[in-house]
C-alpha cells in the first residue's frame, strides 16, 4: 500500500491508503483554482513529455487528460489507435517501446484488457504510468474525481473548505452504487476510494450484474432498491456495459430499467439532500430518466468539470514529484 503517489505510477486505487487519496484531493483543490484563472496554465511540468495512449475509444477521458497535461505545460504525444500500427498487430510491448524511444516522462493509457497498464509499467519502468481505465479492472482518476466531487459539493453545503472537513465528511457517509457493477472498472475504483475514506457502501444490482465473491468486498449488497434509495446520501449510477457483453446478463434494457433504473417515481423516494452521480456517458432512459438527470440533485456536470483538476493533480504528483529529497 502506498502513502503517496508522488513519483509513482497510478495503476489502481486498491494500492492507495487514505492519506494518498486525500493528498490527491487536496492538490486538486489548488488546480480547481488554476482552472478558474484567465490563463489556465502553470509551468509545473514544463519540459516533460506525456504520452496519451488510448487503445479504447474515449473522447472525453482522453481530452480531459490531455488538457490536464497541457495546462501543466507538458508536451503531449497523442496516439490514435485507429491509425496506429497496433491495429496492424504490433504488440503492446513494441508499441510502447516505439513511443518511449521518443523520450517520454509519463504515459496515460486506456486499454480493453485488465492489467494492461501494469504490464506496460513493467516494460518501461522509468516512465510513470497512469491508468486511464484497464478492462474491467480499475479507472483510478474516475474514482478520485467522484470522491472529490462529493467532498466539494458537501463542503459547499456545510460552508466549509474541502480540506478541513475532508475526513469528517466521508466518515459514515452512505453511498449506494447501482447497476452493472460486475463489468465496471469505475465501480471498483469508486469502492476503493470510498472505503478508504471511511464511507459506508451498499451495492444494488440484478444478481447477474454483481461481481463474484462480492462478499469479500468492503460493501453490503442489498436487494431492495427502493429501500436503498431512501437510505442513501449519495447514489452512484453505472451504465449497462453492453460493449462488454452485459447484454446477455439481463433480459433487456427495459427489464433493467424496470428493476434498477432511476425512474422519476424512484427518484421521489430520495431524500432532498441526496446526491445523484454518474460517470458518463449516460444512457438516458435506461439507468436514469432524462428528467432525473436534469434535476438539481444530479451533479454529473460537476463530475465532468472536476476531471481536469483531478488529472492535473495526478500528473503533478506522479510526474513532477520524482525528485529525491530528505524524508522521501
Amino acid at each position, binding site marked *: 500500500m502506498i502513502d503517496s503517489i508522488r513519483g509513482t505510477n497510478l495503476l489502481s486505487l486498491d494500492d492507495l491508503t487514505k492519506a494518498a487519496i486525500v493528498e490527491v484531493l487536496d492538490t486538486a483543490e489548488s488546480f480547481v483554482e488554476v482552472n478558474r484563472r484567465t490563463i489556465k496554465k502553470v509551468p509545473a511540468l514544463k519540459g516533460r513529455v506525456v504520452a496519451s495512449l488510448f487503445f479504447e475509444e474515449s473522447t472525453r477521458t482522453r481530452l480531459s487528460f490531455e488538457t490536464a497535461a497541457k495546462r501543466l505545460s507538458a508536451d503531449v504525444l497523442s496516439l490514435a489507435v485507429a491509425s496506429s500500427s497496433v491495429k496492424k498487430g504490433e504488440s503492446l510491448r513494441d508499441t510502447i517501446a516505439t513511443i518511449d524511444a521518443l523520450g517520454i516522462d509519463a504515459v496515460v493509457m486506456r486499454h480493453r484488457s485488465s492489467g494492461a497498464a501494469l504490464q506496460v509499467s513493467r516494460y518501461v519502468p522509468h516512465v510513470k504510468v497512469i491508468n486511464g481505465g484497464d478492462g474491467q479492472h480499475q479507472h483510478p482518476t474516475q474514482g478520485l474525481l467522484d470522491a472529490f466531487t462529493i467532498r466539494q459539493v458537501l463542503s459547499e453545503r456545510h460552508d466549509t473548505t474541502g480540506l478541513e472537513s475532508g475526513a469528517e465528511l466521508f466518515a459514515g457517509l452512505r453511498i449506494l452504487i447501482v447497476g452493472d457493477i460486475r463489468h465496471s472498472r469505475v465501480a471498483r475504483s469508486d469502492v476503493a476510494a470510498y472505503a478508504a475514506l471511511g464511507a459506508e457502501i451498499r451495492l444494488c444490482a*440484478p*444478481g447477474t450484474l454483481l461481481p463474484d465473491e462480492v462478499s469479500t468486498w468492503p460493501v453490503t449488497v442489498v*436487494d431492495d432498491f427502493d429501500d436503498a434509495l431512501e437510505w442513501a446520501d449519495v447514489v452512484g449510477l453505472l451504465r449497462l456495459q453492453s460493449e462488454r457483453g452485459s447484454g*446477455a446478463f*439481463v*433480459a433487456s434494457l427495459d*427489464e433493467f430499467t424496470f428493476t434498477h433504473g432511476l425512474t422519476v417515481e424512484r427518484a421521489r423516494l430520495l431524500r432532498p439532500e441526496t446526491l445523484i452521480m454518474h460517470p458518463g456517458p449516460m444512457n438516458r432512459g435506461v439507468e436514469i430518466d432524462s428528467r432525473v438527470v436534469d434535476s438539481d440533485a444530479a451533479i454529473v456536470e460537476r463530475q465532468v468539470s472536476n476531471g481536469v483538476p483531478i488529472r492535473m493533480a495526478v500528473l503533478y504528483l506522479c510526474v513532477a514529484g520524482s525528485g529525491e529529497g530528505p524524508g522521501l
Partner: protein
Amino acid sequence: MSALVIRQGLVVGVDVGEVADVLIVDGRIAEIARSIDAPGDAYEVDARDCWVGPGFVDLHTHLREPGREAAETIESGARAGALGGYCALVAMPNTEPALDSVALVSFVLERGARTPLDVAVAGAITKDRRGESLAPLAEMAALGVRLFTDDGVGVQDPSVMRRALTYAKPLGVRLAQHCEDEALAAGGTMNEGELSARLGLTGRPALAEELMVLRDIELVRLTNSPLHFLHLSTKRSLDLVLGARAMGLPVSFEVAPHHFTLDESACANYEPVFKVHPPLRARGDVEGLRDALRRGVVDAVATDHAPHAPELKDLPFDEAPAGMLGLEHAASLTFEALGDSANPVSFFQVLSRGPARIAQLRAVDGPRRHSAHGGSMIAGEDANVTVFDPLEHWRVDRHALASRSMNTPYDGRAMAGRVRATIAKGRLVVDQGRLT
C-alpha cells in the same frame, strides 16, 4: 353465491381429522364440525366414505393456448382439471408464441381468470425458450409469476442456466427444469434399453436426464437459488435430488403419474399415445418412484398434461409428438400407487399441499391475484376443497373426457378411487363426478 355443506367426509388437514361436515360460505370455509346446521338454501354435497381435503394443485399443465387451441384451450383444460379434482393449474409456457413476456403472460392470466379455477403461469426462462438469453423474469414476476421454466426442453447451456439462477434468486421466484441433455437424447423416442433396440427405435438414455440433474444440483449449490425438478423419471434421478435436499440445498421435485404407473413395455405396440419426454422407463424405475411415493419423500405429483390433436397422435411413433393427458386421472393413479396403506395425509400432500408450496400459492406466500391453496382445512381458509372417494371403481373412456384431446394412455383401464366433488374458490364445479 349460496352456501355449500359437505357432509360427513373424513376431513384431511395436516393430520387425518375426523368425519365431519364442512360449511362453505362466500368462498371461505366457514365451519368444520361433527354436525352443522346449514342454512336452508345451502347445497348439500354427500361425502360419506370420502376424503375431504385441500383442492389439488397441478404444477405442470400444458394448456396450449395461445397457438394450439385445437388440442386444448385454457377453458377446456380447466374443465379437465376440475374433473380431476384440481382447483389450481400452473400453465406451462411452451405455447405458440412462448410465454416469455408481460403481454403473453397477461393474456393467459386474463383468460384463466374467466375459468372457475385459479390459473397461474410459469414464465419461460429464456426468450422464446431458446436457451440463449434471459427472458424478462423481473417484469413477469411483477405480474405474479413465481415459477419459470423452458419446459418442453431443458436449458442446455450451463452458463445460461447459471446466470438464470443467479438472476432469479433476489426476485424470490423458483426456476424449474425439464432435465434432458438434448445431445445425448437426440432423436430418441422411447427409453434407451434392450426394448428400444429390439423395436428399432432410437432410445433416450436415462443418463440424459440424470446428467442434467447432477449438473443443476451443482449449479444450485453454487448459486443457492431454488430449483424445482420437473417429471423426474428414473430412480437414480430421485436419489440424486433426495440427497441434495438432505444436504439442505433448495431443491424440490415432482413425479408424473405416467412415470409411476406405466413402464417402457407399453411402447411395444408402437402406440404413439405412450410416447412422452422423458420417456416411460424400465420397471425398476417405476417401482422406485412408487416406493418413494409410499415413503412420503416425494414433494409433488404433477400431471404434465400434454394434449395433442388426434391426427397428430396418429402419426408413426417416431414422428408423433410426445406427451399424454393427465389431469383427469392423476388422483386415482396416485391413490393406487400409494397402495393398500394409502394415507390420506400423504395423498393430499403430494397432490395439493406440496405443489401449493412450490408454486407459492399458499396463504402464507403473500398477496397475489389468486386464492390460497394447499390449506390445512380450518375455518377462515379460502374454500378450495376436493372430495375424493377411495372406494369407487370405474373405467376410463377416452371419448368421455373433458379435454379437447383424447391422447390418454389409460383408455379402458380400471381405476380405483375417483374425485367426487371439486369446490374451487367456494364454487361447486364438480359434483358426483361430473361438471356442474
